[in-house]
């Protein structure tokens, strides 16, 4: 925030590095530096070294786990969030790390004069493509086939898994390396393949950490951001045999690299997700910082690309718009280290593309929610979300967490994810950072209405709102609830926060009750003059009766 020049603003944040948890700041000792000695601000350089190490080693804080998932029962996000908050070292590191990404995003976005126009353009390109999706999908398929690619169509996640399994069986493939893909998370791909005796190896560092720890990714771009280096040291020691006492990030990253490379060299098949699918050329484009999509796609003789049908863009000339937005929104870096185009099989290899619907065409038909299909999975809405940063992505108990998850997840399962749209203050920051201008917070609001109308909100909540509506629509009942000034102390706090369990008072002090309400003050101090002026005596008498 800058301010008008004539206002004296003192920046109280500068002297603590912009942190709201300055106690976790680490000495400035280990991140990359440029020729001028300054800390590099590129994609994955740490601009703000944080420490989740407790002062006493024996007080090591276990990683809080995610929401309890029980079949179809509504996810209790608030309960899981409360456990995350009860782990202060994790909470602070998570919050500051993601806020740092948000700040980097602001800094880099604000260097581009046409930023807001770019967002609008990207939004319009996506709207156009989704409106003509059938045309572009057929064009993509025809072009891909012409390029020598085998194209498959999957109506849902189960069909995607069966198709891929059949391809692997045809080739006698037993091991598959893959880059990160939220679509395959949606499909439960790893679990399916585990059950069918196919070994899957994730090659993205964060995703590999999550795979080894048997956890889902908690963030679409940073799958293990809820874990500290101490957690990773523990997971790697348990699964890769590393030194449990060594939590140096370079050591840990190198250990993952050294243990994954042999799989890359020997895997029978490779798979990538897809950031953008270009209809005019039949090309799949992936954006990574580790180059692992290139290895996954280009090393094995059999390569498979899984594509959500909403990933289409019409022409290669449109790609630049999205590339300019994607990494800036996600990490505050101008571009990912690798932007890779997969178009045709290399000599002597086979290339498959699987186009997956899995609920997307149904969503396309939802008048209030179809624009959620514009999402390019940058994670900016998560980074800026104050609830997400203090809950951890696993608290949502769903493939997609954070603001975008709140509006996508209920399309998969309205009952199970019925609580998620309520895990928001609807502050609107998500909408403002979204590179394709999805009105996320307005869709959260709209989902609440849909869920209430379809009886997917708890009866107690509905009952409270019904009671509130009855009181607030009748002045006499409202005045009775507010009460005479003397007894207000008993009634007011409960009334004002509609709160049967006093959840307000668990974390906060109750507001003091004033000597009299504004209404009573007005009657006492202004009614006589008002009456004289307007002759509106009846109004005052009526209210006397109500009070």
């Amino acid at each position, binding site marked *: *925030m*800058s*301010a*008008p020049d*004539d*206002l*004296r*603003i*003192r920046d*109280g*944040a500068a002297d*603590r590095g*912009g942190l*709201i948890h300055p106690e976790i700041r680490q000495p400035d000792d280990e991140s990359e530096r440029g020729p001028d000695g300054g800390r590099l601000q590129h994609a994955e350089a740490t601009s703000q070294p944080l420490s989740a190490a407790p002062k006493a080693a024996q007080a090591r804080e276990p990683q809080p786990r995610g929401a309890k998932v029980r079949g179809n029962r509504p996810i209790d996000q*608030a309960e899981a969030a409360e456990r995350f*908050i009860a782990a202060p070292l994790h909470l602070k590191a998570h919050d500051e790390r993601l806020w740092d990404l948000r700040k980097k995003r*602001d800094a880099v976005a604000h260097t581009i004069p046409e930023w807001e126009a770019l967002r609008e353009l990207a939004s319009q390109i996506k709207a156009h493509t989704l409106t003509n999706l059938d045309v572009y999908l057929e064009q993509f398929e025809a072009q891909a086939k012409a390029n020598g690619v085998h194209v498959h169509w999957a109506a849902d996640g189960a069909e995607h898994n069966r198709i891929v399994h059949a391809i692997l069986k045809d080739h006698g493939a037993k091991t598959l390396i893959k880059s990160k893909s939220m679509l395959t998370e949606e499909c439960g791909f790893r679990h399916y393949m585990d059950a069918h005796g196919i070994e899957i190896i994730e090659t993205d560092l964060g995703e590999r950490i999550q795979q080894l720890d048997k956890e889902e990714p908690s963030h679409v771009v940073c799958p293990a951001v809820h874990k500290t280096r101490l957690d990773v040291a523990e997971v790697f020691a348990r699964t890769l045999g590393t030194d449990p006492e060594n939590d140096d990030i370079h050591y840990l990253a190198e250990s993952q690299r050294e243990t994954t490379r042999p799989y890359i060299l020997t895997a029978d098949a490779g798979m990538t997700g897809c950031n953008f699918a270009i209809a005019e050329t039949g090309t799949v484009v992936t954006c990574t910082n580790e180059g692992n999509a290139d290895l996954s796609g280009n090393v094995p003789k059999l390569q498979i690309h899984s594509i959500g049908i909403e990933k289409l863009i019409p022409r290669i000339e449109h790609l630049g718009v999205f590339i300019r937005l994607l990494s800036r929104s996600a990490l505050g870096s101008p571009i990912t280290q690798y932007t890779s185009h997969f178009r045709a099989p290399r000599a002597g290899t086979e290339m498959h593309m699987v186009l997956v619907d899995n609920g997307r065409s149904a969503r396309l038909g939802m008048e209030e929610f179809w624009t959620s299909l514009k999402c390019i999975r940058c994670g900016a809405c998560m980074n800026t979300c*104050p*609830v997400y940063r203090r809950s951890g992505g696993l608290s949502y108990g769903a493939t997609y967490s954070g603001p975008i998850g709140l509006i996508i997840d209920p399309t998969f399962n309205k009952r199970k994810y019925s609580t998620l*749209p*309520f*895990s928001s*203050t*609807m*502050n609107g*920051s998500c909408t*403002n950072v979204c590179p394709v201008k999805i009105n996320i917070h307005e869709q959260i*609001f709209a*989902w*609440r209405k849909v869920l*209430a109308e379809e009886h997917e*909100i708890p009866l107690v909540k*509905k009952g409270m709102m*019904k009671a*509130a*509506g009855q*009181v*607030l*629509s009748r*002045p006499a009942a*409202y005045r009775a609830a507010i009460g005479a000034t003397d007894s207000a102390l008993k009634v*007011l706090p409960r009334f*004002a*926060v*509609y709160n049967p369990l006093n*959840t*307000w008072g668990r*974390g*906060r*002090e109750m*507001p003091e009750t*004033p000597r009299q309400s*504004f*209404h009573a*003050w*007005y009657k006492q101090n*202004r009614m006589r003059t008002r009456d004289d002026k307007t002759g509106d005596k009846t109004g*005052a008498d*009526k*209210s006397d009766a109500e009070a």
Partner: protein
Amino acid sequence: MRVGLFVPCYVDAFEPEVGIATLELLERFGLDVTYPFDQTCCGQPMTNTGCHAEAAATEALFVKNFTGFDYVVAPSGSCVHQVRAHLTAIPQTPEVIAVRERTFELVEFLHDILKVEELPWAAFPHKISYHSNCNALRGIGHARASEINAPFYSKPLDLLAKVKGIEVVEIARPDECCGFGGTFSVFEPAVSAKMGYDKVSDHARAGAAYVVSADSSCMMHQKGCAERLGVPLKFIHIAQVLNGAAA
């Protein structure tokens, strides 16, 4: 100019002096201000919880109370945003549409409609941190939000700049939600309170003695958090500061 004064339910109940300051401030500009006596609430608690049908009668009462004024003014960005964006549970008659279009939040009314140039009676010689309610900021455009790449402006800071002696400090996360969120504050108490703790700590570390805001709801929450943490912050509504409150 006939102005209808809308005093939101929690201002009526907890912060009557905010309603008084709003009334007095508007009267300083020679306006004919009426407080419709049968008013209650804008319906936001119900609609924000998805319960639109349950909000319909409250919305109808709001329109009944505030029909016929040139402007309806309220000291709350949140309630005004509800009226302007979400008062849709009842049929949108010309009467309903007129009330919705004429409803203004106090700061924008002073800044955009009255175009106030000076506040000679106002002096507040204190260090303050300004808290933007999210609906005021992003819903009705009080200021340029930090996410947006556009020239900076801030209507509340413009007005506060006319107050003698005031010093505004900047916090680490100026636009971050404080976690009140209406019914969110009771349905997600842990996250809500944690957001509030972080917010009041941010104000305090920046050296603010007072938090000033155009919304009492956020401040009621933050005050509860500050008291629980023992953070010595004071809270005051912008209507009071602009009306010349000494402290």
